């Protein structure tokens, strides 16, 4: 699956970010996020920041919120492991935090190196007191993200939305792109 064709769920997720007033979008890219990253980057009202590692995004969004901005961290499941200690910032400061995670290591995964963090992602997040919402089918994606943002920024509960690999599509290692 390439970024060429914008998928409906991806457009809906972008609309949720706009409606919820998300201003800072930090990411380590994933193919499943590419359409959303492009849309956010094209919106002059949004600041998109490419990170060198996912934990930077947690600190960055903490600082953003200190300054009055709402933000979101986009990453794939392998990045969750990089975030663990930095999540102590969110818990200690009871800061809002929301992340949208594309899952790897499941549903026909071709690359076994994606499996360990893919399998561990929900548990790792839960252990760090981040509430996990898993989306299996496209029609649930936008409503789930909307709820997660609300409970993060209104309810001060750290939240993660996991987009299943079945939903985003298997990574095709034989494809030209």
């Amino acid at each position, binding site marked *: 699956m390439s970024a060429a064709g914008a998928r409906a769920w991806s457009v809906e997720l972008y609309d949720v970010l706009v409606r919820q007033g998300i201003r800072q979008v930090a990411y380590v890219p994933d193919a499943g996020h590419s359409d959303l990253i492009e849309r956010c980057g094209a919106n002059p009202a949004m600041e998109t920041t490419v990170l060198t590692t996912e934990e930077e995004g947690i600190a960055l969004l903490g600082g953003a*919120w200190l300054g009055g901005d709402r933000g979101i961290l986009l990453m794939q499941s392998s990045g969750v492991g990089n975030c663990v200690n930095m999540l102590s910032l969110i818990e200690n400061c009871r800061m809002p935090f929301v992340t949208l995670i594309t899952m790897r290591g499941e549903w026909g995964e071709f690359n076994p190196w994606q499996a360990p963090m893919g399998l561990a992602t929900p548990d790792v997040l839960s252990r760090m007191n981040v509430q996990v919402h898993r989306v299996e089918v496209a029609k649930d994606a936008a409503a789930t993200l909307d709820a997660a943002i609300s409970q993060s920024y209104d309810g001060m509960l750290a939240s993660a939305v996991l987009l299943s690999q079945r939903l985003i599509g298997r990574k095709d290692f034989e494809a030209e792109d």
Partner: protein
Amino acid sequence: MTVNLPLLDRRETVARLLRDRGELLVVSGLGSATYDVAAAGDDPRNFYLWGAMGGTAAMALGLALAQPERPVLAVTGDGDMLMGMGSLATIGAKRPSNLSVVVLDNEVYGETGAQPTAIAHGVDLVRVARGCGLEAPDDIRDMNGVGTLVERIHRSDGPLFANIKIDAREHARVLPARDGAWLRSRFREAVLGLAP
């Protein structure tokens, strides 16, 4: 060169950085940098990190992007900066002119028994920062250099990076509040006028 001059005192250095601070917003890195910023005088516009090692510069970046009209300063140690070195690349890619990252470089992990950092083995943070596209003067070794740095911080024509060579002497700890939820509410009330 000035290598024979005594190294700077961290408390005097940070007190000079924060004197007449104006609109400056400050994020301090865990350990001695946080104690130094507290010792210079508590202020609701200080956000003291007590953990989250490696995150100081990235946190200041998010704040600088959210508050582009105010100068934002990260003050941290060389250990924290080395752990978060990738964030210099992230800052270089975003180039917020109002962000300054200042490292208090004593070449040791002071909180854990003064084990040497990579700086003691020859790593040069100024060259790293320049490679990432930040404005970065040579290592600062005297108070005149600190004074010039303060002017640059307030000009907001960065992103700016500075590495200040300080002595490794331990000072009495000046401990600010460590309740993060209180610190963030106090900061947002002072800066944004928002109730908790």
